[in-house]
């Protein structure tokens, strides 16, 4: 039971460096004409924003870096983007799709 104590929920913050574990596969599905995330016994449909974020989750960039990059690309307020993607990445972390 000691190991249960060492397993903790990852909390996403501006300094977190999210990445996709190798068993999570972000793939374009040509037949369906959309992106899919393949996960253990799960398939998710990410929208364009989620795909843009996930493509930047390389384990090197921080959430703040990703927010800055997307803010520049879409000419959007960085605070808004930051809040939005932090929430999204927290949800994806809780689903086991990203780690940090």
């Amino acid at each position, binding site marked *: *039971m000691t190991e249960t104590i060492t397993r903790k929920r990852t909390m996403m913050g501006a300094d977190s460096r999210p990445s996709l574990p190798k068993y999570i596969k972000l793939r374009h599905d040509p*037949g*369906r004409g959309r992106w*899919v995330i393949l996960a*253990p016994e799960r*398939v*998710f449909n990410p*929208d364009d924003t989620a795909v843009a974020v996930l493509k930047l989750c390389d384990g090197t960039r921080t959430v703040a870096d990703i927010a800055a990059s997307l803010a520049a690309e879409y000419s959007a307020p960085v605070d808004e983007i930051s809040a939005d993607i932090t929430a999204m990445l927290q*949800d994806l972390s*809780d689903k086991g799709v990203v780690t940090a």
Partner: protein
Amino acid sequence: MTETTHIAEEGAAPACELIRAPLGLLAELTYRCPLQCPYCSNPLNMEKSPAELTAGEWGDVFQQAARLGVLQVHLSGGEPCLRPDLEDILKHAVAAGLYTNLITSGVTLTRDRLEGLAALGLDHVQLSVQDVDPEAADIISGYKGGAPKKREVARWVRELGLPLTINVVVHRHNIERLPAMIDYAVEVGAGRIEVAHTQYYAWALKNRAALIPTREQFKRSVEITNEARERLKGIIVFDVVAHDHYAVRPKPCMGGWGRNLIDITPTGKVLPCHACEGIPGIEIDNVRTKPLADIWIKGQSFNMFRGTSWMKEPCKSCERREIDWGGCHCQALSMTGDACATDPACELSAFHKDFAKLAEDEAAAPPPPFIYRRIGAYTEVKAAE
């Protein structure tokens, strides 16, 4: 902004009568299994030495499945590790670009073999755990010494960097230990736990009285699961397969008949659902004689209950008709004699009260002995009756 704005779980798309591409393929590689769990979903009349699909035939099936849109393959059984050519089968699945999931009891695995499978590109392992109490696990599985072996296999899976799901089938003999089973899954490093209440078809239907919990036990298990899901958020993902007899509304059979999943048996029969072979009038196709796309799109079996046009009242005008798709046809058939009737798990079914009472009465009585899942056992039992 909420999660659903950006990420939707596949399978939840709005319904229509158009045929969707299937997402998953359940590949039952063999019915052979060292375990004899009395709730097995395999058919009662498993053939003794069936001509199983060869690795090459599975390879062809996987290519066809991928072209049809299948994204994930679940290598299952029986016990898939009893196939000496599992490695070849896995290679074919990986070559077809499918996400691969090994559904195993683990008892025959060695670390070397698992390492080899991981190296070939296996994506995920689902390990069944019958009980946290080793003696109880031996009794339910009819197999001695499974528990320590499974713990070892779970450790190997994690050491090899593979994601792990622990599958627990819940019934009257282990339901009181559900909290310990959840702790076990966390402890062995699983990222996901499947709390699967026994589904009373096939062997489990035969053994219903021996397996069914009381309504109180079931309710308590729901509270335990809900509390644990919240407490363990971000640590382990929960999936619950609901219990039918104490349900209010049915669950969608296979996520909707002919919508998401294809089940292929060891001899190549292509099924919309595990248990559908008993439905009168159903015509089962085989991958040995027909292209998979033809079967999925035009097959009589897949179209029998696809969409909503087959429905009668109260399903026909129900606002949930495209959520639960009428529920389970096999259960409707066994309770009402009509596979097109509303699943008796639904409170709108005229049979709902009887369906619940049957469970309550059986759960209140002492459990009868198990009829263990053995190839040929059912016919022997029948002969003895």
